[in-house]
């Protein structure tokens, strides 16, 4: 009897928490590595062309993105292979552009609204027809600042 109680008293019941931060940080790193920062899933394949005269887009909150490209494999059964436009996270028609722009605009403080830029992320293999339609619609909506997204040409 006394032998048992003595043994209990000897052993330390606390679990060391010193390694807890390690575990937490390991998790943090895991998530940091696997996370891809993108606001919307791309449903069209966009491989922007190369260019040299590039300008950086300054404030992310002042930029709205329009994606144009062919639907990715997963959506080809439904949407075919003709170039389509994606607004936000879904396929959209040209006619939906004004509403899309307006939705973005109301989130921006009024003083900054003239600096709103539309970033056109267009696949290099798309023909100009759809791009032209989008441009015309942007002009009609009064969104004149446009940025053709491109990659830096490697030397």
């Amino acid at each position, binding site marked *: 009897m006394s032998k048992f109680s003595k043994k209990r008293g000897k052993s*330390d019941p606390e679990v*060391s928490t010193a390694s807890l931060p390690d575990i937490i940080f390991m998790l943090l790193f895991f998530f940091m590595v696997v996370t891809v920062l993108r606001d919307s899933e791309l449903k069209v394949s966009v491989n922007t062309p190369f260019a040299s005269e590039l*300008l*950086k887009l300054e404030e992310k909150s002042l930029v709205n993105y329009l994606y144009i490209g062919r639907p990715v494999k997963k959506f080809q059964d439904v949407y075919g292979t003709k170039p389509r436009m994606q607004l936000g996270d879904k396929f959209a028609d040209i006619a939906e552009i004004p509403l899309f722009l307006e939705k973005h605009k109301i989130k921006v403080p009024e003083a900054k609204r003239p600096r709103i830029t539309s970033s056109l992320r267009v696949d290099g293999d798309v023909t*100009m027809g759809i791009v032209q339609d989008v441009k015309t619609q942007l*002009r009609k909506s009064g969104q004149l600042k*446009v940025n053709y997204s491109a990659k830096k040409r490697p030397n």
Partner: protein
Amino acid sequence: MAKKSTRDRMKNEINAGSMADIAFLLLIFFLVTTTIVEDKGITVKLPPWSEEEPDITKLKERNVFSVLVNAQNQILVRGELTRVRELKDLAKEFIANPSKREDMAEKPTMAIISLKNDRGTNYRTYLEVYNELKAAYNELWNELSLRKYGVPYTEEMPTAYKREIRGEIPLVISEAEPTNFGEE
């Protein structure tokens, strides 16, 4: 009380105080090395939309640098088949007209680059052409800036300088309504 027993002294823990420092070091390392995809591109200003037909102003032919791109992605500059890489030098020579040729822009302020493409033109080709034309202007601005102020032309330079340079060589790339011969 004052004298600790041997067992108490043996029960030593690893000092976890520096753990946080190490973790933070790693965190900062990752923060620094992570490259967030940058948004870069060619910025253009579209002309405002107007319902009425633009009034046709007759321009002197020597002041217009016409660039046509067809559905086969061939480039026609002032009636001659041209390759993309020649475009920049041609445009530069046209705008600056250093040898005062009769068939080129009277002065940079009167030069107009007219760009017209087909609905079937590849976007890649279109952007390459636009890029070359923009590059021609950028190089001219840079040369002028070096000559006048001794500094290269950048977006960050004083606005007064920039305005002066842009006033002397204004960027005029006029895009016509595209033709429709080869849309897929």
